[in-house]
């Protein structure tokens, strides 16, 4: 699951270029929907910039300090269900949405965490972030949040384990691509 980003593609360049062009023009001409979109863009960009540099800094330090053996032992294929539980605990402490969890998952994967564990981590980090859950209960009640946790976690665990098995059986097709990507 290494990076294989080739967003330098022509289409993407056109999209981004066109987008910023339209936003700029809207700003000058006072075209309100365009201004609104520009406003949205800024708001989201700022909230992302508050989180991402920190996340990547921690990933960088994780990369140089934590030994592969440690990750492999606790989150690797041999770790079994305990590895998945660790992944849930890790995910519970994450601050920030999927675009933060993904690079973290990528770093864990490169240090030897199992595929299934990674999927558990991604799923759990979507649903079970503790700071967010506390906030949620204050608006929707503890019953609402409890149901979400109790129903989604077992399902996430189950699907991750099944997915890992499936990927192993079809290792010729998918895992090969994955390896090629990570060796790039």
């Amino acid at each position: 699951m290494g990076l294989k980003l080739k967003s330098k593609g022509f289409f993407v360049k056109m999209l981004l270029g066109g987008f910023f062009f339209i936003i700029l023009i809207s700003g000058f001409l006072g075209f309100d929907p365009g201004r609104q979109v520009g406003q949205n863009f800024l708001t989201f960009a700022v909230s992302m910039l508050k989180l991402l540099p920190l996340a990547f800094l921690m990933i960088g330090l994780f990369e140089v300090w934590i030994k592969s053996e440690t990750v492999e032992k606790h989150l690797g294929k041999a770790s079994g269900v305990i590895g998945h539980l660790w992944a849930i605990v890790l995910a519970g402490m994450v601050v920030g949405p999927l675009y933060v969890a993904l690079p973290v998952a990528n770093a864990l994967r490169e240090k030897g965490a199992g595929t299934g564990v990674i999927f558990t981590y991604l799923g759990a980090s979507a649903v079970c972030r503790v700071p967010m859950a506390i906030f949620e209960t204050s608006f929707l009640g503890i019953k609402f949040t409890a149901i979400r946790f109790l129903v989604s976690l077992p399902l996430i665990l189950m699907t991750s384990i099944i997915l890992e098995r499936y990927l192993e059986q079809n290792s010729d097709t998918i895992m090969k691509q994955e390896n090629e990507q990570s060796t790039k």
Partner: protein
Amino acid sequence: MYYVYLIAGVVLLVSFAADPRKTKKGVFIAVTRFGKIIGALLVMLVLVSCLPFQVSVNEFFNIVGHKNTVIGILAASLLGSVMMLPGFIVFPFCGVLAQKGVPYFILSAFTTTMMMVGVVTYPVEKAYLGHKMAIIRNILGFGIALVVALVTGIVFGEIG
């Protein structure tokens, strides 16, 4: 939020004190990885900011909340999959909707898909997982969200 910065600062200092060379290497890794993904992040940002959440979501839920169960869940899930809003906006908003009488299972479908399924985060997800895995993950997330919503409806006595 600030305690996160504080922790990060302390970790960085401790790391530097322990081994400056390693720390520099770590920071270098951080910068290069961030640089690699920034294109996909930009695409995601553009998609997010084009989402028409000025469209009256309020009205949407008033309609969806009182229609039949299946259509309600599906519509709320699809909306949740497409939209991406931070938690501090979504949950207060859903709190208000709940008071207005929108069923909890509808809100559950909406918030769970918003967290588990990301149409707009797809460019970033694809960069990390490859398109096949990204699609599988999103479909599974959607399915799980549907189950969560159904159970919510049953427990709250809104379904069945």
